[in-house]
């Protein structure tokens, strides 16, 4: 009954996409074990870059800084962007729907300079605050809110209001209805939006460089290494990040499996 042909076709595209996306990953993981520092010459197998990574306090603290900023920016974006999506769905204004995209269409350098000028005037000069990771969070959330709102809106576009009405009719109050009926239905949209913002923040250089004061995030550290050659220490770090993420994913699958079973 269930035709395998179409499923296989989709699966083939999926696998093809994975190959395409992971080819450069395979290369950079391989290079993390390269004795030679240059990407174009294989000098033999070596784990020296991993030892160097372990000793490199600056890269490690930059990585932590980036993680903090990305998580915070994602949280803020979700907390402000999700209600925005709901408001937009209610207001049904095509103009507002379009304007939500504005943060995305401002060129990076313009946003970076604008925010630094503004932060400098207001926070540094008037309030005596040093710019730091917190100002990067503010900057990243500024475009993050838009991404979350847009993605959640795609979920709300055909939202089934009858479930909400049913819940209210059955006596649940608004808050309960929101958390137990509405939120689960839009959750995939929220998760997708959160993933986008997190991903964008983690590797964002221009805006972070201008708004971070003298703090150093991972992209700032990596891009600044370009002058004297980006050594495979960065590849080693990337491999570690990948390894940890995959481990987390596998662990969460195990957890889900046990939950489902119980």
């Amino acid at each position: 009954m269930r035709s395998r042909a179409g499923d296989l076709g989709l699966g083939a595209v999926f696998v093809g996409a994975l190959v395409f996306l992971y080819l450069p990953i395979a290369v950079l993981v391989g290079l993390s074990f390269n004795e030679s520092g240059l990407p174009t010459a294989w000098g033999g197998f070596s784990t020296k870059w991993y030892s160097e990574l372990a000793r490199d306090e600056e890269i490690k603290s930059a990585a932590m800084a980036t993680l903090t900023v990305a998580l915070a920016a994602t949280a803020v974006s979700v907390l402000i962007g999700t209600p925005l999506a709901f408001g937009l769905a209610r207001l049904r204004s095509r103009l507002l729907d379009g304007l939500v995209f504005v943060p995305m269409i401002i060129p990076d350098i313009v946003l970076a300079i604008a925010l630094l000028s503004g932060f400098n005037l207001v926070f540094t000069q008037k309030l005596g605050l040093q710019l730091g990771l917190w100002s990067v969070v503010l900057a990243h959330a500024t475009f993050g809110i838009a991404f979350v709102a847009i993605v959640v809106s795609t979920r709300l576009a055909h939202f089934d209001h009858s479930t909400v009405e049913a819940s209210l009719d059955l006596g649940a109050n608004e808050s309960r209805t929101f958390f137990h009926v509405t939120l689960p239905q839009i959750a995939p949209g929220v998760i997708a939006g959160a993933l986008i913002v997190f991903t964008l923040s983690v590797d964002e250089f221009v805006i972070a460089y201008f708004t971070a004061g003298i703090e150093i995030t991972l992209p700032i550290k990596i891009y600044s290494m370009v002058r004297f050659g980006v050594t495979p220490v960065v590849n080693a770090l990337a491999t570690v990040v990948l390894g940890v993420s995959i481990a987390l994913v596998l662990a969460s699958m195990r957890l889900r499996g046990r939950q489902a079973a119980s």
Partner: protein
Amino acid sequence: MKHLRPTGLVAVAALAVLAIVVAVVAGSATAKTSGTTLTISNWDAYTPKDLIPKFEKATGIKVKLAKHTTNEDIMGKLEAQNGGGYDIVFVSGPFAESLKKRGWAARLDQTQIPNRKNLYPAASRLAYDLGNKYSMPYTWGTTGLCWRSDLTKTPTSWNDLLKPSADLKGKTTMLATDRWLMLPALKVLGYSINTVNPAQLKKAAALLKETKKTLLAYDDTTFYSKLVSGEARLVQAWDGWCNYGIGENPKIKFKIPKEGSDVFVDSMVVLEKSKNKEAAHKFLDWVLRADSGKAVTELVLYKTPNAVAMAQVKKSLGKQYPNLLIPPKLLLTFETERDLGKAQPLWSRTVSEIVG
């Protein structure tokens, strides 16, 4: 009905992360330090590892080292902060001149920098800041041709790059930054590297547009690894960078073409808005020590204008990296890059036309 638990988890996660935000804000905002702290911006891996710890120990002044990727980035930040935010910045010559012209570079008190006596006399005759009134030079060098001696014959002229022979077509690179992209053409045509004459720029641009057809790529950062891998055989290079290639493959060589070249300088500038000028002077003085200069050259394989340091380094590194031995007298026969003032947009546009 879908699971209810996930939403609770989401709420908790959000709160946790908000807590992080608060912590981060609190942490950054109340960064009160006892004693003086100098905020310095430099390129990554451009300061010897020991230099700052030794300075901090000897003087009790703390240093926070920020990074910038290019001159343009740090200048952009300074512009947006109206010349504030740092005590010292490391920038190349024309940018130091620009900072001076904007009124953002502090006039140096030479009496607080006794180690300047270690500098070559030539180092005080750099046109972008005669007498080192607003900056102190950190490293210097020149631009030339860097090639694989086993893959192509020795070049003599910039034309070997601009109008390459058949075996070199598609195997050459030029520097991407505007001042250096234009340099070979300007030298070949006999113009000043600081020319603002539109007709001269046009002629140089025409020459470079032809060159682009034979070029592999414009590359500021990975040209030496292209030489090592053989992807390129002849590249335009800063002398210090060519040394990185030489370090990997001794068949790589460096030469200044017969038409001449430039002398570029990376320098240290104390910002006028700095509140720690005395400490900043101490830092500059520290950097001009002989042992500091020696460490700098050993780290980045550039020449420093520190005569005492260079004398110590010549023996150990000079053989492997001959361009370290280029005498300052020769360097000073070349022009140094100046700030272009009003003509900067014209230059940028000219380069845009070449690159397309």
